[in-house]
């Protein structure tokens, strides 16, 4: 049984916080057995393209390893950003 790790995304995924999120996510998937990650966006009210880049990077990394990345508790305005940029077609949501 493969365990799923949950990482809580911060309120604002902006230029100053995106690198922190990236570090958190990279750390969470560092070990090859940590192949399934859940990103909880319950607190996230702000995301810009630097944040999208982080999500894309981690998604690609896990995909190559046969892992999964699921995003949950996405607020409507954040979902709108995913939709407008086409990221809702690339990311997986719960």
């Amino acid at each position, binding site marked *: 049984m493969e365990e799923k790790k949950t990482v809580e995304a911060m309120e604002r995924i902006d*230029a*100053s916080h995106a690198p922190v999120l990236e570090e958190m996510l990279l750390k969470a998937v560092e070990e090859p057995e940590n192949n399934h990650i859940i990103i909880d966006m319950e607190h996230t009210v702000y995301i810009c*393209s630097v944040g*999208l880049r982080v999500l894309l990077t981690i998604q*690609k990394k896990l995909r190559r390893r046969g892992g999964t990345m699921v995003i949950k508790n996405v*607020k409507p305005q954040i979902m709108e950003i995913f939709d*407008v*940029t*086409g990221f809702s077609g*690339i990311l997986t949501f719960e």
Partner: protein
Amino acid sequence: MDIEKKRNQESITVEAAMEHLEEVLHFVRRKLKKTEGRMQDRLVVEIIVEELFTNIASYAYGENTGRVTVECRISQEASEVMVVFTDRGMPYNPLEHEDPDTRASIEEREIGGCGILMAKKMMDDVQYEFRDGKNILTIRKYME
């Protein structure tokens, strides 16, 4: 080189560099509080401001530095927000350029162009003009 920062009621002028992003967002945030808008609409305007400022900081002046003025006006009825970005960088109309392929696969997907794409889709109006040697990019959002 000393870059003076002009701050008055309606606009802020800073060096077009990421270290000034917070300052610009802080200025816009303060103005947005005067609107009747919902929190999420105000946040969307901030996100677009971050995107467009980042683009100017990254590309407008190439290897050189230069200034950008961000003007933020709230209509009398506090229902509409207008933000104008003015820079003297190389002439560039972001509206003329092709949007990133939003249906690209994960391997082909690019991040570039997302900012202006978000502006076009999430703001009520986006206008560009090149006048007196300046790039002038105006976004408007009607706050419900």
